[in-house]
């Protein structure tokens, strides 16, 4: 096997243990990578990935107290922080490999089990990059969201390299799902399943059924996936979607609560639970879910104002029912402060925040603070840094403050 030329490649190494980090950095440098950047934890890696592009990400599964390597992978793939053309190699221990293999939805391009020698890593990397090179046109089309092209390219790759058939069929099925051609997608996945019960194909078929509104069929497939794969928590999210589609919001909430018990660090799932709990007017659960989302947001790709605003809005609802406890007030103030720090340059966010604040003061009959907040709002509107209250809001405030 010829030596692969790594000199045009930039690598990002993510590893929390100093000893392994030094060793792996040396290995990558020896292979001749153009550059090797280092992150000691997932949060730092995200910051680096936001500002730079890498061809290879070598990440350990265990990354100390923060996010683990799988959560990092899911987040950066989901938010498209790394292109499909980049290679993600996960370093695992015997105990963590199950979590990685069981994730189904977002899998690394390859994995390597500790301990490994320099020669083995080099070999693994060469093979992976070779495989990615074969799939390059497919991945370029995926990055451009040209799914029809990706399907076409995948069929070509499959013909030239029969061993990549599984990967290609999976991509083809996923592309049909993206193009909302659900019957086509279902046909692809079902056909794979005739030969072998591959979890990714069951997952694809189950989603196609969901979009085709074959909800019961979809549910039974997701339940099957959950039984076969203990670590596939995403199946819960889909079951919750099915329950929502069937108008059974209470069942959906119970499913999400269970999923969160298994995997509490998933921000998007906390957001889902918060929104769902709001619709069934369970504002306590909603507040808790958004509170957790806020605390997860800081070092996440999904750090946006909506999370914080949703959290504030739950306090409006809570204060309609009962006076806020001092603990709740504190939490409210803490999230309020974060919005001020992070998102107050946005006039719409600023206006929305003022409106929630005013609503809460009115609900708890703190007229003074309500008036002060409104005054600040009016001042900011005049300086052009906040949107003005709507007519309806003005009417409502006037009415409330006159009493």
């Amino acid at each position: 096997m010829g030596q692969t030329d790594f000199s045009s490649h930039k690598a990002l190494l993510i590893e929390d243990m100093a000893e392994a980090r030094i060793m792996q950095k040396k290995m990558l440098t020896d292979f001749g990578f153009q550059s090797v950047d280092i992150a000691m934890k997932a949060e730092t890696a995200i910051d680096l990935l936001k500002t730079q592009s890498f061809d290879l990400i070598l990440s350990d599964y265990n990354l100390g107290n923060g996010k683990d390597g799988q959560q990092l992978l899911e987040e950066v793939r989901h938010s498209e922080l790394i292109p499909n053309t980049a290679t993600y190699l996960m370093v695992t221990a015997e105990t963590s490999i199950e979590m990685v293999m069981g994730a189904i939805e977002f899998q690394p391009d390859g994995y390597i089990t500790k301990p490994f020698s320099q020669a083995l890593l080099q070999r693994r990397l060469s093979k992976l990059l070779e495989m990615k090179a074969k799939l390059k046109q497919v991945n370029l089309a995926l990055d451009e969201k040209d799914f029809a092209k990706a399907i076409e390219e995948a069929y070509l790759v499959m013909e030239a390299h029969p061993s990549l058939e599984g990967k290609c069929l999976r991509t083809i099925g996923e592309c049909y799902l993206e193009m909302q051609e659900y019957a086509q997608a279902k046909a692809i996945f079902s056909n794979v399943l005739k030969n072998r019960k591959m979890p990714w194909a069951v997952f694809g078929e189950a989603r196609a059924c969901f979009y085709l509104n074959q909800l019961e069929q979809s549910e039974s497939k997701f339940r099957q996936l959950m039984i076969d794969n203990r670590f596939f928590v995403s199946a819960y999210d889909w079951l919750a979607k099915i329950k929502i589609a069937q108008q059974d919001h209470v069942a959906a909430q119970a499913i999400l609560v269970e999923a969160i018990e298994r995997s509490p660090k998933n921000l998007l799932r906390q957001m889902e639970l918060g929104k769902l709990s709001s619709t069934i007017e369970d504002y306590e659960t909603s507040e808790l879910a958004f509170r957790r989302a806020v605390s997860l947001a800081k070092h996440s790709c999904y750090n946006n104002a909506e999370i914080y605003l949703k959290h504030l809005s739950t306090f409006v609802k809570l204060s309609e029912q009962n006076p806020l406890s001092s603990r709740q007030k504190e939490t409210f103030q803490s999230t309020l402060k974060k919005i001020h720090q992070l998102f107050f340059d946005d006039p719409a966010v600023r206006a929305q925040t003022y409106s929630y604040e005013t609503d809460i003061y009115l609900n708890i009959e703190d007229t003074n603070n309500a008036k002060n907040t409104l005054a600040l709002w009016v001042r900011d509107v005049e300086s052009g840094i906040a949107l003005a209250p709507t007519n309806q809001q003005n009417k409502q405030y006037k009415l409330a403050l006159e009493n």
Partner: protein
Amino acid sequence: MKKMDISTILASAIHESKNQVGTLLYQLQGVKETLPKNNLNEAKITVIEESLKKLNDEWVEYLYLYRLASNGYELHVDTFLLDEFLDDQVFALLTSANAKKLELSYHCDSQLTGTFDERLMTAVVGTAVYNALRFARSKIQIHATKEENFLVISIEDDGQGFNTAQEEDSPESNTGLGLYFAQLSANAHVCHDEEGYIEKQESTVLGGAKLAIYLPQ
């Protein structure tokens, strides 16, 4: 005191030990880099390294064995080109074979593909080859073929064969445990209601022992 499940405790103890072996291997790698090429201790260091690697692989085997036996192993199959899979296995085990002055090679059709759990089969092939290292006279071969609905991976040597030298295959012996592991691993592969299995045979190519692993496709 509450009665504890001893096999679970042993499994986690093995896991701890395995991690320590991993750390030792890393440190040894560091030591190797500080030494000049062709120094007098090179052979000794290779022996230590090979022994640690084998120890690591054995711990892995025992961990999988524990999970297979307690139904805690989730099978994850994928489709592989056998040429690549076996090339990987030979690459990982070649130094151990060479250290014993044995030849190790693989033979299969370059287009042959198969669907199986890669980690499990890596451990099974490793176990079988380590075992063959003890009995082979000069060479060990790994073969892969397709027989009807089964992928057959076999490990063959030119030793005395199963019926004589390796008679000691009760589960207590090293060979017996390895065979048991191979059997559970094969059984875990199920496809269209057919279950995988192993067979102990005589090698028609090399005249010694042949362990054939049948995996349903």
